[in-house]
Each structure stands twice: as structure tokens, then as C-alpha cells.
């Protein structure tokens, strides 16, 4: 049974960039800032490509919602080994307000349309850190979900997934078709080699709009304010326990 795998990839601000809050305090500065593929999505693509190399998957389709530049992210996925891409065009202004629920609806519709057997996404995006898309998509599709995957093994018609949880590791079996979200230790993503970048040029990227999938991207949430975390203040040294208790009382903590 050769699986058709869809992988969701998101274009986010590069992890190494120093984030600055916009003057209007409604978001962060994105203009002219370096963007790249969400690191957890790189891991998701890598896993899908490895499944293809093990002949467990027959096709890997990279999907991204976003403005025109999202195509760069898809091309990176193609250069890593995905077979083709789907770009769901969402203009930059709308992209700011695009919610995990919208993305989940889009992914669910695409998976049905393509007849996918497995959807892999990164566990969370490093910009909003919502960690919701995989779960909501599974729910919309009425598929089982295996989140925070650190290992995936295929057995007959099922996946055995090791999950990273607070207490350690948990092993579960999910029937296919299923949704999996990739965690950090699932694998180490390969480099997009120069020859593969050249080959990726010939791979197809299909374009569509959320409307084509009958998905309404009207926001349900409104960002009220975006603030920098408070600057860390210097601590003070105390001489002994009495001093500590006095200081705590002074600060109104006890």
C-alpha cells in the first residue's frame, strides 16, 4: 500500500532573526526581514521524503498558504524531494489574520481532493506557536491524529508513532489515513543540494485560492496588542534568609 502524502509547509520569519514589534503594536516587522521554512515543517518534509525513499509513500505533495513568496518555501520543499507543490494564494494582508482553523479547513479540503493517505505538518509554527493545525485538521477529516511524533513506523495499514510527551515517550498506533505532526527529534532534515534545486525548477506548483476550496478566511480573532516581553530586570543579592523575607515583604510578594 503506497501512500499519497501531503505535507503542510509554512513560510515564517527565519529563526535567527531578531524580532521587532511594529510601531502600531499590532504585529511584528516582516518587511525586508529574512523568511524561511518553519523548522518543524522542514522535519515534516524530510520524513515524507524518507517514506518515499523507503517506498512506503508514492508521492509527496508540499502545500503552503500564503502570498507569492510562499512559492519559495514550496520550492525548498521540492528541492528536498517533494514531487509537486500546491500554493494556496493568500495575500500578505490577509495572511496576517489567517488562523489555524482556516488553514485546517484548507488542508482538509485539499487532502480530500487529492485523495491523500497521510498528512504530515510541523507540530507548530515558530511565529504563532499555536500548535493547533494538525489537531483541527484531523478533527475536520475525522481522521486519527499522532502529534509530537519523534518516530514513525509503518505496519500493515497502520502507523506506530512514538510521541514526545511531558512525562517522556508514548507509543501509539493509528489507523491510516491519519494526520501526524512532526516534533524536533523526528529526523535531521537534509540540505537541498544544488543539483536538486536545479531539478526542482521542473517540478509543478499548482496555484489556487481558498475560495476554490470553498473555504472562507474571514477572521474570527482580532489582535488587540503585540508587546515585547518585559525587559529582564537585574536581581538583588541578600545576605541571609531574614534579608530575603524582608525584601519579599517589601515587594508585596508575601
Amino acid at each position, binding site marked *: 500500500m503506497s501512500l499519497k502524502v501531503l505535507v503542510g509547509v509554512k513560510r515564517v520569519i527565519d529563526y535567527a532573526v531578531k524580532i521587532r514589534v511594529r510601531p502600531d503594536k499590532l504585529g511584528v516587522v516582516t518587511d525586508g526581514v529574512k523568511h524561511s521554512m518553519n523548522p518543524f515543517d522542514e522535519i515534516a518534509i524530510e520524513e515524507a521524503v524518507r517514506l518515499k525513499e523507503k517506498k512506503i509513500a508514492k508521492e509527496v505533495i508540499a502545500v503552503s498558504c500564503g502570498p507569492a513568496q510562499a512559492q*519559495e518555501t514550496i*520550492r525548498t520543499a521540492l528541492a528536498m524531494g517533494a514531487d509537486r507543490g500546491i500554493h494556496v494564494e493568500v495575500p500578505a494582508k490577509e495572511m496576517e489574520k489567517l488562523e489555524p482553523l482556516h488553514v485546517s479547513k484548507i488542508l482538509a479540503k485539499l487532502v480530500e481532493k487529492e485523495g491523500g493517505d497521510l498528512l504530515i505538518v510541523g507540530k507548530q509554527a515558530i511565529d504563532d506557536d499555536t500548535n493547533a493545525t494538525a489537531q483541527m485538521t484531523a478533527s475536520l477529516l475525522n481522521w486519527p491524529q499522532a502529534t509530537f511524533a519523534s518516530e514513525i513506523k509503518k505496519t500493515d495499514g497502520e502507523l506506530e508513532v512514538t510521541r514526545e510527551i511531558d512525562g517522556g515517550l508514548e507509543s501509539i498506533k493509528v489507523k491510516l489515513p491519519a494526520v501526524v505532526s512532526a516534533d524536533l527529534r523526528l529526523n535531521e532534515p537534509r*540540505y537541498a*543540494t*544544488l*543539483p*536538486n*534545486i*536545479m531539478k526542482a525548477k521542473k517540478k509543478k506548483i499548482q496555484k489556487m485560492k481558498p475560495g476554490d476550496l470553498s473555504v472562507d478566511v474571514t477572521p474570527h480573532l482580532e489582535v488587540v496588542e503585540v508587546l515585547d516581553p518585559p525587559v529582564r530586570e537585574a536581581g538583588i543579592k541578600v545576605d541571609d534568609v531574614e534579608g530575603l523575607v524582608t525584601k519579599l515583604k517589601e515587594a508585596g510578594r508575601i
Partner: protein
Amino acid sequence: MMAATFGRFSKALVTSSRGFLRPRWLHSASGVGPWQQKNVPQLEETLGFLPSPLTVLSDEELMMKETVAKFAREQVAPLVSKMDEEGCYDPSLVRGMYENGFMAIETEPEYGGCGSTFFVANLVIEELAKVDPSISLLCDLQNTLFNTLFRKYGTEEQKQKYLPKLATEMTGSFCLSEAESGSDAFALKTVAVKDGSNYVINGSKMWISSAPQAGVFLVMANANPSAGYKGITCFIIDAGTPGLSIGKKEDKLGLRASNTCAVHFDNVVVPEENILGEFGHGYKYAIGMLNEGRIGIGAQMVGLSQGCLDATIPYLLQRKQFGKALFDFQAVQHAVAYLATEIECARLLVYNAARLREAKQPFIKQAGMAKLYSSEVATRVTSKCVELMGGVGFTKDYPVEKFYRDCKIGTIYEGTSHIQLNTIAKLVAQDYVA
């Protein structure tokens, strides 16, 4: 996208009566040049294309650059000191270079290469040099000298035999210089004497990079000394051919990870099929290759300078003296501003030379200028950076002393600065000769 740009570019150039290509606006009746035009559409109308800043790259070029930068940051950086101290490349790193396609950038896919462009090759060389100019040299020599010679002058059989191996695992060494002939390259004394359908090669080459690791050598030997330099012929000699031996490694100031050795030819028998290109044309190939190769060296020097500055500025922003960061002192700011400007100039010279060569426009003068200027900028930048870092700049704990040592060869190899100046002067004079 690039092909389209250069297609339009060539329409914008007309041949003047002297046969030099000039921008069309020089011939326009109104005598209005672009500096007087205010509207961009007019510019496009007159030129036939919209010029783009030299530092603006295509999406594909950006992707390639990012991939190399990532490789350099993650795979090369941890090994730089070790390779410098041990005086050799790390074998797993070299394998990584091959696996990522960095060793056959322009080589066509049917021979196992990436099928990418000369400009991208220069980007790869630059990005690698930001982290380690030594590993960048390996990439530069393989791509701009070795692969290009085979691709341009090899017979189909020779290409099939060598290009795929050069793309996947084999390093090539280019042998021109000798103990008695460096800048005076054509005074080389290595001879090739015909013997039936073979040639017997005798002589010694010096300053040969990667000789111990090379699987194949391209050797310039004179097969007809009575014809002077017109007897110089390029021979393909496999490693391990009887009579070919490698001398000891030179103990160098910089680029220490690159092995530089003498190569001795003692009655080395080479079949005549192993002539690359035509008999007696070796000197032409050498000049041609070096004219292009020096753009690559320019890219290496630009990367080196940038890497050195990139290592220095964070220190200047953080180190405090007299109650403020070093960078808060205007003298330091001015020094850094000047260095950054020089690097930018050098980069533009290199990029422009590379684009000209790709557009099949005359580029030799610009290539010489690029190599000359960027190698000299590298010496200024690295020297200043060591100073700006203060005492720590003088220690091996920080990367700037290595950049300082590595840069010096830039003004020497692949045509010394003096040779570049000669070439540039000659070409400048040509513009004034009827």
C-alpha cells in the same frame, strides 16, 4: 529568467564603428543619457530593458546561495580551525562538498553536474570563503579551472570519462607553474617528446593545489619547444601513472588546509588521445581559463573580507572600554564604514565581471580589475579587523588572524597584481587606439 534578461541586454547594445559594443543611448539623436532621464519607463524604452542592481539575485540564485551559506555555517565552520592546524581538508567535508553538488556547478546534468551558471559558481565560492577560504579554493579550482577546461575543450569521450567522476568524487589538479616560471608562465620547461603514438613527459611543476588528493592532472607541457610557447600542449594525466610523483607539502602562511606540492614527471608516458583540445594550444587555454578563474578568486576574496568583517563587528558592538562599546567611538565607526564600502566595491566588480562573462560580453579587463581590487581589499580589511579586535584579534581563539593569513595569497596566485595591472593597462589603451 536570466536568459530573458540577457536577451534583452544584447538588443540594448549596438556595435559602434570601432566594433565595440556600446549602450544604445550613446547613439540616440537627442544625446540624452540615462543620467538625465527622470522617468524609469523612458529608461526602459531607450535601453530595451530595465537594469537591475548587481546585488539583486534571481530566486534560484538566492536559493543556491542560502543552501551554501547553511552548509558553510553548519558543516564547514566547526572544522575550520582543525583543518588549518592539521594542514588538510577533512575528508567527510570534501565528500559533503561533492554530495551537495558544489564541485560541478556548471557541468551539465548528463555528466552528473548541476547544470547551473557561472554566476552561481561565484556565489558558492563567495559563501564558502566567508567561513573558510581554503575550502572555497577547492571549489573554485575544480569549477572555474578544471571542469571548465574539460567542458570547453574535451572530446565527448574525454568528457564522459572524467566529468562524471569530477562531479562525484575526484579532484583535479591544474599544473602550469614551475620553480622557474610563475608569472613568466610560458617559459615553462616541462617537455613532452613524441614517441610513436605516445608522449613522454619530463619536468617538475610547483605550487600545485590538491596534488596529493588529485585523481587526475591537467599538465601544461611543451611538445614543440622550437615553436616557443606555441608548443605548449595540455595533457590529461591520471594519478598513479608511472613516473608521476608528488613532492612534499609546502608549509604555508595561509590557506593551510589546501595541500600545495611539487609534482614531478619522470618519463611519464601519455597516449596522444590524452591531449586536451588541440596540439600547441595549451597556452591559449591557460590564458582563457585564468581570465575566468580570476573572477572566482575575486569572489573568494570578497567572501573572505566579508567573513572577516562579520566576525569583527559583533565584538565591536559588545566590547566596552572607557564605559562604552568600541563601536560607539566614531573612529571605529569610520574604520568599519570604510571597510564595508571597500568590500561592496569589490563585490560589485566581481558580480559585474561574472555577469559580463555570462552575457558573452568582453570581460577580461573587468575580471582583472575584480581580482586585483578584491585581493587588495582583503589585505586591508583583514589587517584592520585584527587591529580593531585588539589583543584577541592576534590570537587563534578568534577567526580574524586566519583571515589575515589567508588573504595574502590573493594578490599573488592566478596572476599577481602586477600581471593584472599589465592586462588592465593594455586593455584600457586599446580603447584609445584607432
